[in-house]
């Protein structure tokens, strides 16, 4: 501790006004406040403040993502070994799978943080604002929502795009309209569709080594074309409910396991960092919309029941970690219910009814990000009208 303190003490004058590195003050400040909560005392107003700050809040979300990351690393290895036809049992080759997955996933995490944080620092220095903590979360979200086969340069490009266009262009953390990690994902999705939505991309490894007949398609991809029959027949394992809840299926790195996501949801709800209202209402919207579509039952995909939809694709992950992003979600308590419910409905509608791509929640959340201020406006106006009506009584 003392060592850090004295290093900072030596370094600080160079970054302060008049120092040689004055322009880099905000970068220095980020390091200093990371190491030490500043000794700043309250200037007035409330003399005593709550122990919470944005660093702790953001870090809580990162902790909530840990189960997804760990499971994701293992599952990348597991899916690879399924593909090549070795160690196909869930409990076989634990270390080998973890090792394989780590070699695939950790570079993606490292590249995201490295590129993203550098972009953040560059903006902080150029624009003269403090480095915000938002990227702690974004930097972990991006690796968890891309396929394990993604080239690292693509990760870097998407991260820069998301931070610059999705966030800094609006003024930084707290000012952005769209969820930053989803901006990265949607950039990849539209810029490099073959890398992000092809059948082969979901399982890491050389496709030529894979056993005959192994497609590597996700449950969502299979169900989209062949409905329940396809899900039941998919080789080498059926995409039954058990596997989807456990998460032993191909998919983006961190999204597959309902159990891991559920653990994260527990952390977010217990600490109050994530809004349970939004999570609950997205689930309600999803179940409502998919039940209605199942009742109609026209395309094969419509035959997939609601409880399957909950565990397919990125639905749960998006609900827990992305729909709840407080900056881009509705900000009024009533608005959160509406916002969440509509995400669920649109997510299923886009997923099941659109002709091009089988995942809808990414686009549904981005769509509702755009409409969240409108929802809030309606809620706030109703409060204003209530107050105005009081005068007339």
């Amino acid at each position, binding site marked *: 501790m003392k060592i850090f303190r004295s290093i900072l003490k030596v370094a600080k004058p160079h970054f302060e006004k008049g120092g040689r590195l004055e322009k880099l003050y905000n970068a220095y400040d980020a390091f200093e406040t990371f190491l030490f909560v500043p000794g700043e005392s309250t200037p007035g107003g409330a003399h005593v*403040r709550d122990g919470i700050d944005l*660093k702790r809040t953001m870090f809580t979300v990162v902790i909530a993502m840990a189960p997804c990351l760990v499971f994701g690393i293992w599952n990348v290895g597991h899916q690879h070994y399924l593909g090549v036809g070795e160690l196909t049992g869930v409990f076989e080759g634990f270390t080998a799978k973890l090792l394989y997955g780590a070699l695939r996933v950790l570079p993606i995490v490292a590249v995201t943080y490295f590129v993203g944080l550098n972009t953040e620092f560059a903006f902080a220095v150029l624009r003269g604002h403090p480095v915000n903590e938002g990227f702690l979360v974004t930097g972990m979200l991006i690796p968890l929502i891309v396929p394990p086969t993604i080239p690292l340069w693509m990760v870097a490009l998407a991260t820069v795009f998301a931070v610059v266009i999705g966030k800094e262009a609006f003024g930084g953390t707290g000012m952005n309209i769209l969820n930053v990690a989803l901006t990265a994902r949607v950039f990849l999705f539209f810029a490099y569709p073959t890398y992000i939505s092809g059948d082969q991309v979901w399982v890491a490894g050389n496709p030529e080594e894979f056993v005959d007949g192994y497609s590597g398609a996700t449950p969502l991809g299979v169900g989209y074309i062949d409905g329940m029959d396809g899900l039941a027949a998919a080789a080498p394992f059926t995409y039954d409910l058990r596997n989807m809840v456990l998460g032993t299926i191909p998919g983006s790195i961190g999204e597959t396991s309902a159990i891991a996501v559920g653990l994260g949801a527990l952390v977010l709800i217990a600490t109050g960092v994530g809004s349970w209202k939004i999570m609950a209402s997205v689930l309600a919207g999803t179940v409502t919309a998919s039940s209605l579509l199942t009742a109609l039952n026209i395309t094969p995909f419509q035959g997939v029941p609601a409880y399957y939809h909950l565990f397919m694709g990125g639905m749960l992950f998006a609900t827990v970690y992305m729909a709840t992003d407080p900056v881009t979600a509705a900000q009024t308590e009533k608005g*959160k219910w509406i916002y969440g419910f509509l995400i669920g409905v649109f997510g299923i509608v886009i997923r099941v009814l659109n002709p091009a791509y089988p995942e809808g929640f990414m686009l549904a959340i981005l769509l509702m990000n755009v409409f969240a201020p409108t929802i809030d406006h309606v809620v706030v106006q109703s409060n204003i009208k209530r107050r105005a009506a009081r005068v007339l009584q």
Partner: protein
Amino acid sequence: MEQVEQNVIRLRRGFDIRMFGEAEPRYLDRPPAALYALKPTDLHGLAPIPKLHVKEGDEVRAGQPVFFDKGMPDVQFSSPVSGEIVEVRRGAKRAVREVVILADARMTFQEYPTADPASVSRERAAALLRESGAWVLIRQRPYNVVPDPSRVPRDIFVSCFDTAPLAPDAGMLIEGREEAFRAGLRVLGRLTDGAVHLGVRTDSPPVFRKAEGVEVHVFSGPHPAGAVGVQIHHTRPINKGDTVWTLRPQDVALIGRLFTAGVFDAERTVAITGEEIRESGYVRTRLGASIQTLVDGNTRHDHVRYISGDVLTGTRIEPDGFLGLFDDRVTVIEEGDTPEFMGWLLPSYARPSMSRTFLSTFFPDRKFHVNTNMHGELRAYVMTGQYERVVPMDLHPQHLIKSIMVGDFDQMEGLGIYEVVEEDLALCEFVCTSKQPVQRILREGLDALRVEG
């Protein structure tokens, strides 16, 4: 009894900051203060340089006018003690910060005509309040300012309990002045066409709970249930164009005594609280007293903060500073200006928090050692729903604050800025993850509207 229970207005949202340092329920025998001060800065909306009736070296009696604001020439600010004007302390641009009075030992009062509280005419009552200096102890909403003499308040509200951290016992503050309090209520009743409303709790002393000729409302719930703005919202809310008055119980008693005895008797019972205080308790002193004799040799450490008022809304003062006009306690807490290694990750000591990211969540009754550390840095808004959890009103506090930030007057009005003052939203500032100065922003909004309107 059952019927009483039904009428309780139960507020669920809010937060009690539990901290060490409550005042022991005893009256202390501290030496009386020698110096007293009138601070124009205790009131909003006054011109920076008031018109002084006196100059340094003049003798004044207790209750003798000392200065007035040129915008309200018949509203006087009176001396709380008899003695000598020893100093007029000025700040930037010669603005008067403090008029300091050295008390003499005799305490001679300026004599005012008495009047029967039950039958005095409104004009006469208001005139007596204005010329004696009691008028400035009444606050007018919206804006929390000195009441406009040309307006009759729709209603008058008195909150008879305090829920802010380390709240003094309301019964001990009023003890010995119950009769004056009742007389004061009768005077107030003459000043409005509406009603005088008292906000009480089920455990409030009978002088409040059983007050006659007024409307008594029973509240329950965590802080800010005791904030008068919250009580107004749940009884007769302030609409655009309304004017209401608010007072504190001790000032009601002062008004009562003014009418029955003809003196401006600025006696005030003050609680000495805060963890850094060795000998806590209550003292009987006078309005504007120097806190020096209360805290001198009575603190545990040297590096402390002296606050006139409570830790959420109080004013930071020096160890020889003066009590604020509306404050009934002195709080002394540790300064928290030491950096904390990785404090955002693993805090080195427990601290109060409404968030559930700390282990202390699991010990809801636990009290905390507090200090003045910010526990974080100023950020743009990220979290939502935090303010709403501590404001038990039909109001969107975060949107209100944002509308002030962007200067949207219509939106401020629509979202209810007239219903709140700093103390009602003080908890928002406490809980804010982004450490926004909520009270200062709110005051900027109120001032902007007041000047505009």
